Protein backbone atom coordinates (compact mmCIF):
# COMPACT_ATOMS: atom_id res chain seq x y z
CA UNK A 1 0.00 0.00 0.00
CA UNK A 2 2.86 2.29 0.92
CA UNK A 3 4.43 1.81 -2.49
CA UNK A 4 1.32 2.18 -4.58
CA UNK A 5 -0.71 4.49 -2.33
CA UNK A 6 1.90 7.23 -2.17
CA UNK A 7 1.92 8.06 -5.90
CA UNK A 8 -1.86 7.81 -5.96
CA UNK A 9 -2.23 10.51 -3.31
CA UNK A 10 -1.50 13.51 -5.59
CA UNK A 11 -3.84 12.08 -8.20
CA UNK A 12 -6.63 11.75 -5.65
CA UNK A 13 -5.97 15.32 -4.49
CA UNK A 14 -6.03 16.55 -8.08
CA UNK A 15 -9.34 14.83 -8.77
CA UNK A 16 -10.84 16.32 -5.57
CA UNK A 17 -9.53 19.77 -6.46
CA UNK A 18 -10.90 19.62 -10.01
CA UNK A 19 -14.25 18.42 -8.68
CA UNK A 20 -14.32 21.24 -6.14
CA UNK A 21 -13.44 23.82 -8.82
CA UNK A 22 -16.10 22.50 -11.18
CA UNK A 23 -18.64 22.62 -8.36
CA UNK A 24 -17.85 26.23 -7.43
CA UNK A 25 -18.08 27.20 -11.11
CA UNK A 26 -21.39 25.40 -11.41
CA UNK A 27 -22.73 27.23 -8.35
CA UNK A 28 -21.68 30.61 -9.77
CA UNK A 29 -23.37 29.78 -13.07
CA UNK A 30 -26.49 28.83 -11.15
CA UNK A 31 -26.38 32.17 -9.31
CA UNK A 32 -26.03 33.92 -12.66
CA UNK A 33 -29.10 32.18 -14.09
CA UNK A 34 -31.07 32.95 -10.93
CA UNK A 35 -30.07 36.64 -11.14
CA UNK A 36 -31.06 36.75 -14.80
CA UNK A 37 -34.43 35.20 -14.02
CA UNK A 38 -35.06 37.47 -11.03
CA UNK A 39 -34.14 40.60 -12.96
CA UNK A 40 -36.18 39.52 -15.96
CA UNK A 41 -39.21 39.00 -13.71
CA UNK A 42 -38.72 42.38 -12.00
CA UNK A 43 -38.26 44.07 -15.35
CA UNK A 44 -41.47 42.59 -16.74
CA UNK A 45 -43.34 43.57 -13.56
CA UNK A 46 -42.00 47.10 -13.71
CA UNK A 47 -42.75 47.53 -17.40
CA UNK A 48 -46.26 46.23 -16.89
CA UNK A 49 -46.79 48.57 -13.96
CA UNK A 50 -45.44 51.60 -15.80
CA UNK A 51 -47.66 50.87 -18.80
CA UNK A 52 -50.62 50.59 -16.47
CA UNK A 53 -49.87 53.92 -14.81
CA UNK A 54 -49.47 55.63 -18.17
CA UNK A 55 -52.83 54.31 -19.32
CA UNK A 56 -54.65 54.85 -16.03
CA UNK A 57 -53.36 58.01 -14.39
CA UNK A 58 -54.71 58.63 -10.91
CA UNK A 59 -53.59 62.01 -9.78
CA UNK A 60 -56.29 63.13 -7.39
CA UNK A 61 -56.32 62.04 -3.77
CA UNK A 62 -59.45 60.26 -2.65
CA UNK A 63 -61.52 62.52 -0.38
CA UNK A 64 -62.46 60.38 2.60
CA UNK A 65 -64.29 63.21 4.43
CA UNK A 66 -66.51 63.76 1.43
CA UNK A 67 -67.10 60.07 0.89
CA UNK A 68 -68.34 59.51 4.44
CA UNK A 69 -70.06 62.89 4.85
CA UNK A 70 -73.54 61.45 4.60
CA UNK A 71 -72.86 58.15 6.31
CA UNK A 72 -74.97 57.58 9.40
CA UNK A 73 -74.75 54.76 11.92
CA UNK A 74 -77.18 52.86 14.17
CA UNK A 75 -80.23 53.51 11.97
CA UNK A 76 -81.74 50.21 13.09
CA UNK A 77 -81.62 51.36 16.71
CA UNK A 78 -83.22 54.64 15.81
CA UNK A 79 -86.09 52.86 14.07
CA UNK A 80 -86.51 50.47 16.99
CA UNK A 81 -86.72 53.35 19.44
CA UNK A 82 -89.30 55.28 17.44
CA UNK A 83 -91.97 52.58 18.01
CA UNK A 84 -90.99 51.93 21.61
CA UNK A 85 -91.71 54.81 24.11
CA UNK A 86 -89.57 53.44 27.01
CA UNK A 87 -86.63 52.98 24.64
CA UNK A 88 -87.23 56.41 23.13
CA UNK A 89 -86.99 57.86 26.62
CA UNK A 90 -83.79 56.00 27.24
CA UNK A 91 -82.46 57.19 23.91
CA UNK A 92 -83.29 60.74 24.84
CA UNK A 93 -81.25 60.31 28.02
CA UNK A 94 -78.29 58.92 25.96
CA UNK A 95 -78.77 61.40 23.15
CA UNK A 96 -75.17 61.43 21.98
CA UNK A 97 -75.31 57.80 20.84
CA UNK A 98 -77.05 58.59 17.55
CA UNK A 99 -75.20 61.77 16.81
CA UNK A 100 -71.92 60.09 15.94
CA UNK A 101 -70.08 61.61 13.03
CA UNK A 102 -67.22 59.82 11.26
CA UNK A 103 -64.39 62.32 11.20
CA UNK A 104 -60.85 61.81 9.99
CA UNK A 105 -57.59 63.20 11.34
CA UNK A 106 -54.80 64.83 9.36
CA UNK A 107 -53.53 63.27 6.12
CA UNK A 108 -50.25 61.44 6.41
CA UNK A 109 -48.33 60.86 3.20
CA UNK A 110 -45.53 58.42 2.58
CA UNK A 111 -43.81 57.46 -0.64
CA UNK A 112 -42.40 53.98 -1.01
CA UNK A 113 -41.80 53.64 -4.72
CA UNK A 114 -43.60 52.73 -6.85
CA UNK A 115 -46.47 53.63 -4.50
CA UNK A 116 -47.69 56.72 -2.71
CA UNK A 117 -49.48 55.97 0.57
CA UNK A 118 -51.94 58.54 1.97
CA UNK A 119 -53.46 57.66 5.28
CA UNK A 120 -56.13 59.09 7.57
CA UNK A 121 -57.28 57.78 10.93
CA UNK A 122 -60.60 58.15 12.83
CA UNK A 123 -60.51 61.09 15.22
CA UNK A 124 -62.42 58.93 17.72
CA UNK A 125 -63.86 55.37 17.79
CA UNK A 126 -67.36 54.91 16.36
CA UNK A 127 -70.10 52.69 17.76
CA UNK A 128 -71.58 50.41 15.10
CA UNK A 129 -73.94 47.47 14.96
CA UNK A 130 -73.26 44.38 12.82
CA UNK A 131 -75.05 45.86 9.80
CA UNK A 132 -73.15 49.16 10.01
CA UNK A 133 -69.86 47.37 10.30
CA UNK A 134 -70.43 45.24 7.21
CA UNK A 135 -71.66 48.25 5.22
CA UNK A 136 -68.64 50.30 6.29
CA UNK A 137 -66.21 47.55 5.25
CA UNK A 138 -68.02 47.05 1.96
CA UNK A 139 -67.81 50.74 1.16
CA UNK A 140 -64.08 51.00 1.80
CA UNK A 141 -62.94 47.70 0.36
CA UNK A 142 -65.35 47.26 -2.55
CA UNK A 143 -67.43 50.27 -3.62
CA UNK A 144 -64.83 53.04 -3.39
CA UNK A 145 -62.21 50.74 -4.73
CA UNK A 146 -64.18 50.00 -7.92
CA UNK A 147 -64.99 53.70 -8.27
CA UNK A 148 -61.30 54.46 -8.45
CA UNK A 149 -59.11 52.10 -10.37
CA UNK A 150 -58.69 48.39 -10.16
CA UNK A 151 -55.34 46.62 -10.35
CA UNK A 152 -53.50 48.68 -7.82
CA UNK A 153 -53.84 52.38 -8.45
CA UNK A 154 -56.02 54.19 -5.99
CA UNK A 155 -57.07 51.19 -3.92
CA UNK A 156 -58.20 51.68 -0.32
CA UNK A 157 -57.27 49.43 2.54
CA UNK A 158 -57.03 49.37 6.33
CA UNK A 159 -53.48 49.64 7.68
CA UNK A 160 -55.08 49.56 11.14
CA UNK A 161 -58.44 48.18 12.17
CA UNK A 162 -59.73 47.52 15.66
CA UNK A 163 -63.16 46.43 16.89
CA UNK A 164 -64.27 45.71 20.43
CA UNK A 165 -67.61 44.34 21.50
CA UNK A 166 -69.40 46.64 23.96
CA UNK A 167 -72.71 46.40 25.77
CA UNK A 168 -75.04 49.29 26.59
CA UNK A 169 -78.74 49.50 27.61
CA UNK A 170 -79.73 49.13 23.93
CA UNK A 171 -77.86 45.91 23.27
CA UNK A 172 -74.47 44.73 22.00
CA UNK A 173 -72.45 46.88 19.60
CA UNK A 174 -68.96 47.18 18.17
CA UNK A 175 -66.68 50.05 19.00
CA UNK A 176 -64.65 50.57 15.82
CA UNK A 177 -61.38 52.41 15.35
CA UNK A 178 -59.50 52.38 12.06
CA UNK A 179 -57.10 54.04 9.70
CA UNK A 180 -57.84 54.12 5.99
CA UNK A 181 -55.06 54.34 3.49
CA UNK A 182 -55.09 55.01 -0.23
CA UNK A 183 -52.36 53.45 -2.33
CA UNK A 184 -51.60 55.07 -5.65
CA UNK A 185 -48.87 54.38 -8.11
CA UNK A 186 -46.24 57.02 -8.74
CA UNK A 187 -43.77 56.99 -11.59
Amino acid at each position, binding site marked *: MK*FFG*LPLLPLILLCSFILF*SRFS*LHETKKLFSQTQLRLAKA*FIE*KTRYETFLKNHPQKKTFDLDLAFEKTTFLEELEKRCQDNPPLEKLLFQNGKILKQKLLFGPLKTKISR*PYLYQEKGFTHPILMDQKDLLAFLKKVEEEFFVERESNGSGELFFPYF*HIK*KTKNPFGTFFLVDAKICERRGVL
Partner: protein
Amino acid sequence: MKALGISFFGYNTAKVLLKKKGDEIALCQEYPLEAEEKPLKALAVDFLDTKVRFYPLPKTSRQNQKKLLLSRLASDPMIDLSLLNISFKEVPLGLEVHFIEKKRLEAFKKDFDFITSPQQALFRFLKDFKALFEPALVIVEQKGVHVCLHYTPTRWGGFGIWDESCQSLSEIQKFWGLERIFVLGSLENFKDALNLEKVESLPLEALSIGASIEALDPKGICFHSPLESEEFRQKLLSISKNLFFALSLAVVSVCVLVRLDTEQKIKEIKQEILAYEQTEDFSNIHTKSPKKVSLLLKDLHGSLEPFGLELVEFDLKQELTEKKPFIEIYFRVEGDSQQMEKYAQSIRKISGSILSKMQPLPEGKKGDFVLKIPL
Protein backbone atom coordinates in the same frame (compact mmCIF):
# COMPACT_ATOMS: atom_id res chain seq x y z
CA MET B 1 12.38 -6.10 -14.45
CA LYS B 2 15.05 -8.77 -14.17
CA ALA B 3 15.38 -11.83 -11.97
CA LEU B 4 18.45 -13.91 -11.35
CA GLY B 5 17.38 -17.53 -10.86
CA ILE B 6 19.60 -19.72 -8.72
CA SER B 7 19.34 -23.39 -7.91
CA PHE B 8 21.64 -26.02 -6.46
CA PHE B 9 21.43 -29.37 -8.13
CA GLY B 10 23.82 -32.04 -7.08
CA TYR B 11 27.13 -30.27 -6.71
CA ASN B 12 26.33 -27.67 -9.38
CA THR B 13 25.00 -24.18 -8.96
CA ALA B 14 22.94 -23.00 -11.88
CA LYS B 15 22.39 -19.31 -12.48
CA VAL B 16 20.25 -17.72 -15.19
CA LEU B 17 19.03 -14.20 -15.74
CA LEU B 18 15.48 -13.59 -16.96
CA LYS B 19 13.97 -10.32 -18.07
CA LYS B 20 10.28 -9.41 -17.99
CA LYS B 21 8.98 -6.89 -20.45
CA GLY B 22 5.21 -6.52 -20.43
CA ASP B 23 3.81 -10.05 -20.46
CA GLU B 24 6.85 -11.59 -22.03
CA ILE B 25 9.66 -13.26 -20.10
CA ALA B 26 12.93 -13.93 -21.90
CA LEU B 27 16.41 -15.20 -21.08
CA CYS B 28 19.07 -12.49 -20.94
CA GLN B 29 22.25 -12.97 -22.80
CA GLU B 30 24.30 -10.27 -21.08
CA TYR B 31 24.96 -12.16 -17.84
CA PRO B 32 27.04 -11.34 -15.74
CA LEU B 33 25.42 -7.96 -15.13
CA GLU B 34 26.98 -4.58 -14.72
CA ALA B 35 28.02 -3.74 -11.17
CA GLU B 36 25.21 -1.24 -10.45
CA GLU B 37 22.43 -3.54 -11.67
CA LYS B 38 20.69 -5.48 -8.92
CA PRO B 39 18.16 -8.00 -10.16
CA LEU B 40 15.72 -9.85 -7.94
CA LYS B 41 17.47 -12.94 -6.62
CA ALA B 42 15.16 -15.96 -6.92
CA LEU B 43 16.00 -19.32 -5.41
CA ALA B 44 14.55 -22.78 -5.93
CA VAL B 45 15.51 -24.80 -2.85
CA ASP B 46 16.60 -28.42 -2.84
CA PHE B 47 14.15 -31.27 -3.61
CA LEU B 48 15.01 -32.93 -0.35
CA ASP B 49 13.99 -29.83 1.64
CA THR B 50 10.40 -29.60 0.39
CA LYS B 51 7.28 -31.71 0.26
CA VAL B 52 4.13 -31.21 -1.81
CA ARG B 53 0.63 -32.41 -0.99
CA PHE B 54 -2.75 -32.00 -2.58
CA TYR B 55 -5.76 -31.14 -0.39
CA PRO B 56 -9.22 -31.35 -1.96
CA LEU B 57 -11.20 -28.23 -0.98
CA PRO B 58 -14.37 -26.59 -2.26
CA LYS B 59 -13.93 -23.40 -4.31
CA THR B 60 -14.03 -20.37 -2.02
CA SER B 61 -12.16 -17.15 -1.30
CA ARG B 62 -8.41 -17.17 -0.70
CA GLN B 63 -8.89 -16.24 2.95
CA ASN B 64 -11.39 -19.03 3.55
CA GLN B 65 -9.11 -21.49 1.74
CA LYS B 66 -6.29 -20.52 4.07
CA LYS B 67 -8.52 -20.94 7.14
CA LEU B 68 -9.77 -24.36 6.03
CA LEU B 69 -6.30 -25.50 5.11
CA LEU B 70 -4.79 -24.42 8.43
CA SER B 71 -7.53 -26.16 10.38
CA ARG B 72 -6.87 -29.37 8.40
CA LEU B 73 -3.14 -29.13 8.88
CA ALA B 74 -3.57 -28.43 12.59
CA SER B 75 -5.55 -31.63 13.00
CA ASP B 76 -2.94 -33.71 11.16
CA PRO B 77 -0.67 -35.36 13.79
CA MET B 78 2.11 -35.76 11.22
CA ILE B 79 2.42 -32.04 10.64
CA ASP B 80 3.86 -29.56 13.12
CA LEU B 81 3.00 -26.11 11.85
CA SER B 82 5.40 -24.45 14.29
CA LEU B 83 8.32 -26.04 12.44
CA LEU B 84 7.03 -25.70 8.89
CA ASN B 85 6.55 -22.90 6.48
CA ILE B 86 3.76 -23.48 4.00
CA SER B 87 2.73 -21.97 0.71
CA PHE B 88 -0.22 -23.03 -1.44
CA LYS B 89 -1.85 -22.39 -4.78
CA GLU B 90 -5.31 -23.11 -6.06
CA VAL B 91 -5.54 -26.00 -8.50
CA PRO B 92 -8.61 -27.79 -9.89
CA LEU B 93 -10.65 -29.38 -7.06
CA GLY B 94 -8.42 -28.17 -4.24
CA LEU B 95 -5.12 -26.76 -3.12
CA GLU B 96 -1.54 -27.78 -3.85
CA VAL B 97 0.40 -27.18 -0.66
CA HIS B 98 4.19 -26.90 -0.53
CA PHE B 99 6.01 -27.43 2.79
CA ILE B 100 9.51 -26.45 3.87
CA GLU B 101 11.22 -26.59 7.22
CA LYS B 102 11.51 -23.14 8.78
CA LYS B 103 15.03 -23.85 9.89
CA ARG B 104 16.14 -24.60 6.33
CA LEU B 105 14.41 -21.52 5.00
CA GLU B 106 16.04 -19.15 7.50
CA ALA B 107 19.47 -19.96 6.07
CA PHE B 108 18.47 -18.62 2.64
CA LYS B 109 16.43 -15.59 3.61
CA LYS B 110 19.37 -13.23 4.00
CA ASP B 111 20.76 -13.87 0.53
CA PHE B 112 17.63 -14.18 -1.59
CA ASP B 113 14.71 -11.91 -2.38
CA PHE B 114 12.41 -14.67 -3.51
CA ILE B 115 12.36 -18.32 -2.50
CA THR B 116 10.16 -20.98 -4.05
CA SER B 117 9.98 -24.76 -4.05
CA PRO B 118 11.85 -26.82 -6.67
CA GLN B 119 8.60 -28.56 -7.59
CA GLN B 120 7.00 -25.22 -8.44
CA ALA B 121 10.12 -24.07 -10.30
CA LEU B 122 10.14 -27.29 -12.33
CA PHE B 123 6.39 -26.99 -12.97
CA ARG B 124 6.78 -23.40 -14.23
CA PHE B 125 9.72 -24.43 -16.37
CA LEU B 126 7.77 -27.23 -18.04
CA LYS B 127 4.57 -25.27 -18.40
CA ASP B 128 5.75 -21.76 -19.19
CA PHE B 129 9.24 -22.24 -20.64
CA LYS B 130 8.91 -25.58 -22.36
CA ALA B 131 5.18 -25.14 -23.06
CA LEU B 132 4.43 -28.75 -22.19
CA PHE B 133 0.69 -29.35 -22.26
CA GLU B 134 0.56 -33.14 -21.90
CA PRO B 135 1.16 -35.31 -18.81
CA ALA B 136 4.69 -36.62 -18.35
CA LEU B 137 6.94 -38.43 -15.94
CA VAL B 138 9.77 -36.33 -14.59
CA ILE B 139 12.66 -38.00 -12.82
CA VAL B 140 15.07 -36.16 -10.60
CA GLU B 141 18.06 -37.81 -9.05
CA GLN B 142 19.55 -36.24 -6.01
CA LYS B 143 22.00 -37.70 -3.60
CA GLY B 144 21.24 -41.20 -4.86
CA VAL B 145 17.48 -40.87 -4.52
CA HIS B 146 15.33 -40.97 -7.63
CA VAL B 147 12.29 -38.79 -7.21
CA CYS B 148 9.50 -39.42 -9.73
CA LEU B 149 7.04 -36.61 -10.39
CA HIS B 150 3.79 -36.95 -12.29
CA TYR B 151 3.43 -33.77 -14.32
CA THR B 152 0.02 -32.52 -15.55
CA PRO B 153 -0.51 -29.05 -17.05
CA THR B 154 -2.63 -28.01 -14.05
CA ARG B 155 -0.71 -29.44 -11.08
CA TRP B 156 1.65 -32.14 -9.91
CA GLY B 157 -0.44 -35.32 -10.12
CA GLY B 158 1.70 -37.47 -7.82
CA PHE B 159 5.13 -38.14 -6.40
CA GLY B 160 7.09 -41.27 -5.86
CA ILE B 161 10.54 -42.61 -5.01
CA TRP B 162 12.00 -45.10 -7.38
CA ASP B 163 13.61 -47.92 -5.58
CA GLU B 164 15.59 -50.07 -8.01
CA SER B 165 15.03 -53.15 -5.87
CA CYS B 166 11.25 -53.24 -6.04
CA GLN B 167 10.04 -51.87 -9.30
CA SER B 168 11.33 -50.57 -12.59
CA LEU B 169 10.69 -47.05 -13.89
CA SER B 170 8.60 -48.46 -16.71
CA GLU B 171 6.22 -49.89 -14.10
CA ILE B 172 5.77 -46.45 -12.56
CA GLN B 173 5.33 -45.04 -16.04
CA LYS B 174 2.68 -47.66 -16.77
CA PHE B 175 1.01 -47.16 -13.39
CA TRP B 176 0.56 -43.44 -14.05
CA GLY B 177 -0.19 -44.04 -17.74
CA LEU B 178 2.47 -41.66 -19.02
CA GLU B 179 4.29 -41.78 -22.33
CA ARG B 180 6.83 -38.99 -22.15
CA ILE B 181 9.71 -39.12 -19.71
CA PHE B 182 11.97 -36.30 -18.71
CA VAL B 183 15.08 -36.54 -16.64
CA LEU B 184 16.58 -33.57 -14.88
CA GLY B 185 20.29 -33.61 -15.46
CA SER B 186 22.42 -36.28 -17.10
CA LEU B 187 20.97 -39.49 -18.55
CA GLU B 188 24.12 -41.45 -17.69
CA ASN B 189 22.66 -43.12 -14.61
CA PHE B 190 19.55 -44.31 -16.44
CA LYS B 191 21.22 -46.37 -19.13
CA ASP B 192 20.01 -49.64 -17.65
CA ALA B 193 16.65 -48.61 -16.39
CA LEU B 194 15.29 -46.73 -19.39
CA ASN B 195 15.23 -46.84 -23.13
CA LEU B 196 17.20 -43.64 -23.61
CA GLU B 197 15.83 -43.01 -27.08
CA LYS B 198 12.46 -42.19 -25.57
CA VAL B 199 13.77 -40.08 -22.69
CA GLU B 200 14.36 -36.36 -22.87
CA SER B 201 16.87 -34.58 -20.70
CA LEU B 202 16.12 -31.28 -18.93
CA PRO B 203 18.97 -28.80 -18.47
CA LEU B 204 20.41 -28.19 -15.04
CA GLU B 205 19.24 -24.57 -15.30
CA ALA B 206 15.60 -25.69 -15.47
CA LEU B 207 15.03 -25.01 -11.76
CA SER B 208 16.72 -21.60 -11.96
CA ILE B 209 14.62 -20.62 -14.95
CA GLY B 210 11.44 -21.84 -13.21
CA ALA B 211 12.32 -19.94 -10.02
CA SER B 212 12.90 -16.74 -12.02
CA ILE B 213 9.62 -17.15 -13.88
CA GLU B 214 7.79 -17.64 -10.57
CA ALA B 215 9.49 -14.55 -9.13
CA LEU B 216 8.65 -12.38 -12.15
CA ASP B 217 5.13 -13.74 -12.62
CA PRO B 218 4.06 -15.28 -9.27
CA LYS B 219 1.43 -18.00 -9.29
CA GLY B 220 1.28 -18.55 -5.56
CA ILE B 221 4.19 -20.64 -4.30
CA CYS B 222 6.53 -18.43 -2.39
CA PHE B 223 8.21 -19.20 0.93
CA HIS B 224 9.87 -15.81 1.12
CA SER B 225 8.23 -12.74 -0.47
CA PRO B 226 10.28 -10.22 -2.39
CA LEU B 227 8.71 -7.41 -0.37
CA GLU B 228 10.33 -8.82 2.73
CA SER B 229 13.71 -8.05 1.23
CA GLU B 230 14.88 -4.71 2.60
CA GLU B 231 16.79 -3.93 -0.57
CA PHE B 232 13.75 -4.57 -2.73
CA ARG B 233 11.52 -2.58 -0.43
CA GLN B 234 13.91 0.35 -0.52
CA LYS B 235 14.00 0.19 -4.29
CA LEU B 236 10.22 0.19 -4.55
CA LEU B 237 9.96 2.94 -1.98
CA SER B 238 12.45 5.10 -3.82
CA ILE B 239 10.56 4.58 -7.12
CA SER B 240 7.35 5.35 -5.29
CA LYS B 241 8.81 8.51 -3.73
CA ASN B 242 10.17 9.74 -7.04
CA LEU B 243 6.84 9.10 -8.66
CA PHE B 244 5.09 10.86 -5.78
CA PHE B 245 7.25 13.99 -6.11
CA ALA B 246 6.98 14.03 -9.90
CA LEU B 247 3.21 13.62 -9.75
CA SER B 248 2.92 16.17 -6.94
CA LEU B 249 4.74 18.69 -9.08
CA ALA B 250 2.50 17.94 -12.03
CA VAL B 251 -0.58 18.08 -9.81
CA VAL B 252 0.41 21.44 -8.33
CA SER B 253 0.87 22.86 -11.84
CA VAL B 254 -2.46 21.46 -13.00
CA CYS B 255 -4.16 22.74 -9.82
CA VAL B 256 -2.78 26.24 -10.40
CA LEU B 257 -3.97 26.16 -14.00
CA VAL B 258 -7.41 24.85 -13.04
CA ARG B 259 -7.69 27.43 -10.25
CA LEU B 260 -6.69 30.29 -12.57
CA ASP B 261 -9.12 29.10 -15.20
CA THR B 262 -11.96 28.69 -12.68
CA GLU B 263 -11.26 32.04 -11.04
CA GLN B 264 -11.24 33.76 -14.42
CA LYS B 265 -14.56 32.18 -15.34
CA ILE B 266 -16.12 32.98 -11.96
CA LYS B 267 -14.85 36.56 -12.21
CA GLU B 268 -16.41 36.96 -15.66
CA ILE B 269 -19.73 35.57 -14.47
CA LYS B 270 -19.72 37.77 -11.36
CA GLN B 271 -19.00 40.83 -13.49
CA GLU B 272 -21.92 39.93 -15.70
CA ILE B 273 -24.16 39.50 -12.64
CA LEU B 274 -23.03 42.90 -11.34
CA ALA B 275 -23.64 44.49 -14.71
CA TYR B 276 -27.12 43.00 -14.79
CA GLU B 277 -27.90 44.14 -11.27
CA GLN B 278 -26.74 47.67 -11.99
CA THR B 279 -29.02 48.09 -14.99
CA GLU B 280 -32.10 48.91 -12.86
CA ASP B 281 -32.85 49.36 -9.23
CA PHE B 282 -35.90 47.24 -8.66
CA SER B 283 -35.34 46.62 -4.99
CA ASN B 284 -38.10 48.97 -3.81
CA ILE B 285 -40.88 47.46 -5.84
CA HIS B 286 -43.44 46.11 -3.42
CA THR B 287 -46.35 44.68 -5.25
CA LYS B 288 -47.80 42.93 -2.22
CA SER B 289 -51.54 43.42 -1.94
CA PRO B 290 -53.01 44.35 1.42
CA LYS B 291 -55.42 41.91 3.08
CA LYS B 292 -59.11 42.76 3.11
CA VAL B 293 -60.60 43.08 6.62
CA SER B 294 -64.08 42.12 5.39
CA LEU B 295 -62.85 38.75 4.12
CA LEU B 296 -60.84 38.09 7.29
CA LEU B 297 -63.85 38.83 9.50
CA LYS B 298 -66.08 36.66 7.31
CA ASP B 299 -63.62 33.76 7.63
CA LEU B 300 -63.36 34.34 11.36
CA HIS B 301 -67.12 34.34 11.93
CA GLY B 302 -67.44 31.24 9.76
CA SER B 303 -64.82 29.41 11.85
CA LEU B 304 -66.36 30.46 15.20
CA GLU B 305 -69.97 29.54 14.41
CA PRO B 306 -69.69 25.69 14.67
CA PHE B 307 -68.18 26.08 18.18
CA GLY B 308 -70.78 28.58 19.41
CA LEU B 309 -68.09 31.15 20.20
CA GLU B 310 -68.37 34.92 19.95
CA LEU B 311 -65.79 37.40 18.72
CA VAL B 312 -65.09 39.98 21.43
CA GLU B 313 -62.15 41.87 20.05
CA PHE B 314 -60.32 42.03 16.74
CA ASP B 315 -57.20 43.99 15.99
CA LEU B 316 -55.38 44.20 12.67
CA LYS B 317 -52.24 46.00 11.62
CA GLN B 318 -50.68 45.73 8.20
CA GLU B 319 -47.53 47.56 7.23
CA LEU B 320 -46.73 47.76 3.54
CA THR B 321 -44.19 50.56 3.55
CA GLU B 322 -41.68 48.64 5.65
CA LYS B 323 -38.72 46.89 4.00
CA LYS B 324 -40.35 43.59 4.85
CA PRO B 325 -44.14 44.10 4.70
CA PHE B 326 -46.04 42.26 7.41
CA ILE B 327 -49.52 41.71 8.85
CA GLU B 328 -50.32 41.37 12.54
CA ILE B 329 -53.67 40.06 13.75
CA TYR B 330 -54.94 39.64 17.27
CA PHE B 331 -58.43 38.51 18.29
CA ARG B 332 -60.23 37.34 21.37
CA VAL B 333 -63.21 34.99 21.54
CA GLU B 334 -65.63 34.19 24.33
CA GLY B 335 -67.68 31.11 25.11
CA ASP B 336 -67.50 27.65 26.62
CA SER B 337 -63.90 26.86 27.70
CA GLN B 338 -63.99 23.32 26.28
CA GLN B 339 -65.23 24.63 22.94
CA MET B 340 -62.47 27.23 23.02
CA GLU B 341 -59.88 24.46 23.44
CA LYS B 342 -61.40 22.53 20.55
CA TYR B 343 -61.39 25.69 18.48
CA ALA B 344 -57.71 26.31 19.25
CA GLN B 345 -56.90 22.81 17.96
CA SER B 346 -59.10 23.03 14.88
CA ILE B 347 -58.09 26.53 13.75
CA ARG B 348 -54.95 25.17 12.13
CA LYS B 349 -57.04 22.94 9.90
CA ILE B 350 -58.85 25.84 8.16
CA SER B 351 -57.40 25.41 4.72
CA GLY B 352 -56.77 28.31 2.38
CA SER B 353 -57.18 30.93 5.10
CA ILE B 354 -54.61 33.07 6.85
CA LEU B 355 -56.37 32.10 10.10
CA SER B 356 -54.86 28.62 9.91
CA LYS B 357 -51.57 30.21 10.96
CA MET B 358 -53.06 31.77 14.13
CA GLN B 359 -51.50 30.71 17.42
CA PRO B 360 -53.06 30.86 20.90
CA LEU B 361 -51.36 33.70 22.79
CA PRO B 362 -49.08 31.87 25.24
CA GLU B 363 -49.20 34.38 28.09
CA GLY B 364 -52.72 35.64 27.30
CA LYS B 365 -56.11 34.50 28.48
CA LYS B 366 -57.81 31.46 27.04
CA GLY B 367 -59.36 32.57 23.77
CA ASP B 368 -56.65 35.02 22.76
CA PHE B 369 -55.06 34.37 19.37
CA VAL B 370 -52.24 36.13 17.65
CA LEU B 371 -50.43 36.04 14.31
CA LYS B 372 -47.61 38.01 12.74
CA ILE B 373 -46.47 36.96 9.28
CA PRO B 374 -44.84 38.62 6.31
CA LEU B 375 -47.23 39.74 3.58
